[in-house]
């Protein structure tokens, strides 16, 4: 009895320590974002903030000052991330249905191809893509970067959803088939509704991935009006001078979207990802 209590306490201690270590930087970022610059540099960031001097000035500055242009970045990120989530989700769901429920020639080979694409590092493709995009006129356009993210998304989401669809008992699909349902009806009326957690998990991961991307954005989006939030946040940092309050406010703004989405869809996300690891 006593041993069990000790064990529970020990486990709690370890978990809380880890959680604190993980959360501390974020707490710090949020705290600093609400402090005046002077306080940050004179008194440090890791402390209980002085309530009287708390300010929203950093946020207002980051969003409204045309020099930083965070609002445009936010809007661009929203457009890029939502469309780059929607396109691969639809395409990959259809592909995943085919891989999990239909028999066709070259299926193993094609599925192997999906896996290979998943494993290619993005950095490896950036130079040929740069030339391709320049020639196609897609360089420095939002359509261009949306296509790029969608293409990467299709591969892993196909794999993810194929595994998810495999969880649906075969008899459900066979019953529908015996009843005369077409593949599209089986897909839309049975497979999709039963895979909502998986679809949400895939959408969240893809959305966050695209939202957080800086590498492709830096290479393919040049002009101010096309740049996304991650690029804008980087530019809050001056070459010789860092306004910590401004930078952290920008970071919080940038993080806000994924955080809200995870908070809202957390339940589905857990369900969806839980299925990911189980072999079937």
């Amino acid at each position, binding site marked *: 009895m006593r041993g069990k209590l000790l064990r529970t306490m020990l486990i709690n201690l370890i978990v809380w320590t880890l959680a604190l270590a993980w959360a501390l930087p974020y707490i710090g970022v949020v705290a600093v974002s609400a402090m005046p610059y002077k306080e940050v540099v004179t008194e440090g960031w890791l402390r209980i903030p002085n309530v009287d001097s708390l300010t929203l000035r950093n946020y207002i500055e980051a969003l409204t000052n045309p020099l930083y242009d965070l609002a445009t970045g936010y809007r661009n990120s929203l457009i890029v991330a939502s469309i780059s989530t929607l396109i691969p989700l639809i395409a990959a769901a259809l592909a995943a249905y085919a891989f999990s429920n239909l028999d066709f020639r070259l299926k193993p080979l094609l599925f192997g191809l999906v896996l290979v694409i998943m494993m290619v590092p993005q950095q490896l493709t950036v130079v040929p893509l740069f030339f391709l995009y320049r020639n196609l006129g897609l360089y420095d356009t939002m359509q261009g970067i949306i296509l790029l993210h969608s293409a990467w998304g299709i591969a892993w989401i196909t794999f993810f959803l194929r595994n998810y669809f495999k969880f649906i*008992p075969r008899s459900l699909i*066979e019953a529908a*088939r*015996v*009843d005369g349902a077409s593949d599209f*009806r089986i897909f839309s009326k049975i497979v999709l*509704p*039963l895979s909502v957690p998986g679809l949400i998990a895939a959408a969240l991961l893809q959305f966050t991935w695209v939202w957080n991307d800086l590498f492709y954005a830096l290479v393919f989006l040049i002009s101010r009006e096309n740049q996304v939030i991650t690029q804008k946040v980087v530019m809050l940092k001056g070459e010789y001078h860092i306004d910590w309050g401004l930078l952290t406010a920008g970071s919080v703004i940038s993080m806000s979207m994924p955080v809200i989405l995870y908070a809202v869809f957390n339940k589905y996300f857990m369900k969806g990802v839980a299925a990911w690891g189980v072999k079937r």
Partner: protein
Amino acid sequence: MKGASLKLWRVTKRFRNVVAVDNLNLEVDRGEFIVLLGPSGCGKTTTLRIIAGLETPDEGRVYIDDVDVTDLEPGERDVAMVFQDYALYPHITVFENIAFPLVVRARKLSLTKRDIEEKVLNVAKMLKIDDLLDRKPTQLSGGQQQRAALARALVKEPKIWLMDEPLSNLDALIRLQVRAEIKKLQKDLGITTVYVTHDQTEALSLADRVAVMNRGRILQIGSPREIYDDPKHIFVATFVGVPPMNLLECRVSDVLECPGFRRKLPEESKEYFKRLNKIYIGIRPEHIEIVSKEEGDLEGVVYVIEPLGPEYIINVLVDDTLIKIKTVKEYTLHSGDKVYLKINWAKAIAFDTATGLSLGKISIA
């Protein structure tokens, strides 16, 4: 509703190197209830899936009402299937589940929403689940889920009703209840039915004819009585019956030498059996009696007694062979007691030890 006839002609199905169904022929009459009975892996489910169109045979043809349906999609065959796990769609209500086959073909059959509602209600009433239509399948008990699955299979008035071990997930009590109901429904509606099971009691109680399968082949097809009383193959004899038929390995010369006793062969069948050198004699447990020493054919020692409520299984060791006797009489016997047994020879059947085929009744008085 009216059933169709069904014919499988030389159907073979292989999975890689395994022959699941081996040159199988089967003819089912209109309105007949056929049960495919066999151990797991005998090809019975594959046969059913071939009829449904969920598997394509490598060789052979499938005919429904003399129309070749081998290359038709499952949905074009006008069959309905009940799955072992019921296969109810968990995200929609029972009503929508039952309506699904109709909704799918609403345009083709020019059904209005009201037609569908009416048909669903009718079939739900027939199966006594009309008060559960608004629930989700997960909110139903096993027996209710089973009824919903049966309703979904019946609502489209199929030509052929296919069932794949539909009772195996139910509790023993409900199983008995639903079993009787399936039989009643089938007889009332007159739908041709093919039913797959590994449970011989189920097979014998439901079927007009039972097809006993092993290793992809039908070993015998016949009425439950025929299957039980006159097995044509040693596999049928030992697979059907609880406990299974006793097999005595006997040597044949001028006399029949069996464990524990010797018998003269009747003159007329002597030559017939003699060429075999060895045969099995099969005798059902209820056709052996415990008698007095004078009446006994053979002598043995009680090994163990299993009371089953209304009846007893008495295991008797004769030489090295364990013989099971089923009786409703109560005996005051204990393990190790010496007993004398009398075989009802009119019910005994001889089997070829090499091929396993029945050699017919062995009439030794």
